[in-house]
């Protein structure tokens, strides 16, 4: 994020804080807590340029794939935030590990840094969303999201993880962001070996010898249906 947009963001947030403190544009005058509950950081769209590196090209070499076809672009701070959010989305439980334990943040970074139009659109949403989280935490708790404690993080996430607000609501874009991140994190997690195991995914299983045909139960069912139609196998 450039210094220019930081300045704009800070300016906007300062303005909204001042306005709220003065009670000017809002009918809520009595309770500070009511003001805090309705205060939202401003969503500032990301304007990062599209990544221009060759990538895989149109016909990737699948026999000898390129190990790092494009550089990853998330900053250490952004990556740390993605890691925190990944583990909120997919924590460890009795049967499978947390997202960060199977490398999900690196996959999300890899995805967002790819030089293609879809990934560029995703990158714009995620970068703006990460900034928004930091600022929303500033507005609420006077510290950045990364520095807030676990319950404060969840308080912010709860507002963008469940309900879809109307499109003109200040939480609409943050909700779009969190929904996208949920898809990316879940996609990365459930394509990892640990995630596939959690799904019970088997994939194609070779059958040695002759094909055994359908199960007896399936064959009986089929025969019954054929009988009803007056047909036979």
């Amino acid at each position, binding site marked *: 994020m450039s210094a220019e947009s930081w300045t704009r963001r800070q300016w906007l947030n300062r303005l909204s804080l001042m306005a709220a403190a003065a009670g000017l544009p809002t009918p809520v005058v009595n309770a500070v807590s009511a003001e805090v509950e309705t205060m939202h950081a401003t969503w500032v769209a990301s304007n990062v340029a599209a990544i221009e590196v060759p990538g895989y090209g149109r016909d990737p070499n699948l026999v000898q794939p390129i190990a790092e076809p494009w550089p990853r672009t998330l900053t250490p701070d952004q990556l740390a935030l993605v890691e925190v959010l990944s583990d*909120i*989305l*997919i*924590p460890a*439980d009795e049967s*499978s590990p947390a997202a960060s334990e199977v490398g999900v943040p690196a*996959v999300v970074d890899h*995805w967002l840094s790819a030089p293609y139009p879809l990934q560029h659109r995703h990158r714009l949403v995620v970068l703006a969303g990460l900034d928004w989280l930091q600022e929303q935490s500033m507005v609420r708790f006077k510290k950045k999201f990364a520095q807030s404690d676990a319950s404060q993080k969840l308080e912010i*996430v709860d507002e963008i*993880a*469940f309900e879809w607000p109307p499109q003109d609501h200040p939480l609409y874009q943050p909700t779009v962001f969190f*929904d996208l991140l*949920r*898809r*990316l994190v*879940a*996609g*990365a997690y*459930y*394509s990892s070996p640990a995630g596939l195991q*959690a*799904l*019970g*995914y088997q994939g194609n299983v070779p059958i040695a010898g002759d094909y055994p045909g359908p199960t007896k139960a399936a064959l009986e069912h089929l025969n019954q249906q054929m009988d009803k139609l007056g047909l036979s196998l």
Partner: protein
Amino acid sequence: MGIRGSDSGYGRSLKQRIQQKYGAGVGLALRGEMLPNANSYMEIDERVKDQWGIPVVKFHWRWSAHELNQVAHGLKTARQIIETMGGQVGMPDQSAEAAIKKGGEIIHEVGTTRMGIDHRESVTNQWGQTWDVENLFVMDGGVFASNPHKNCTLTLMTLAMRNADWLARAMHRGTL
């Protein structure tokens, strides 16, 4: 990258839902035959010419009640199949007119110079030989009398082989 369908929330309950729903999505696509109709035809454009000054062709297109009824029936049946399986239909109700693809969108275009037994209703005979010009043959998908949707390539090649064989015999006999 992602997961099928939409979800909400986060944490252990999200994990459980994804793992429970994985592999439980079923999608059905409807395919059907298009019958020829009088509103779908090509003709020579009265105004537009190509770079050599030759008039271009112009296509007219309209679905008929046959196709729209097929789509309406298919939508109803697909819905019944999923409900009978105990599934929930995620797609909102759609009219046949809204659900049907645009003409040409599935890119299995055949017909236009169809074969037939009557020169007033067809362009070629059963051998791909045009009624109007004795030594002009159509050896591609143009001779299809209707479009059964899937998949025209093998039929097209078979017709070309069969008609080429007939053409070769006619040339040997000296009848052409």
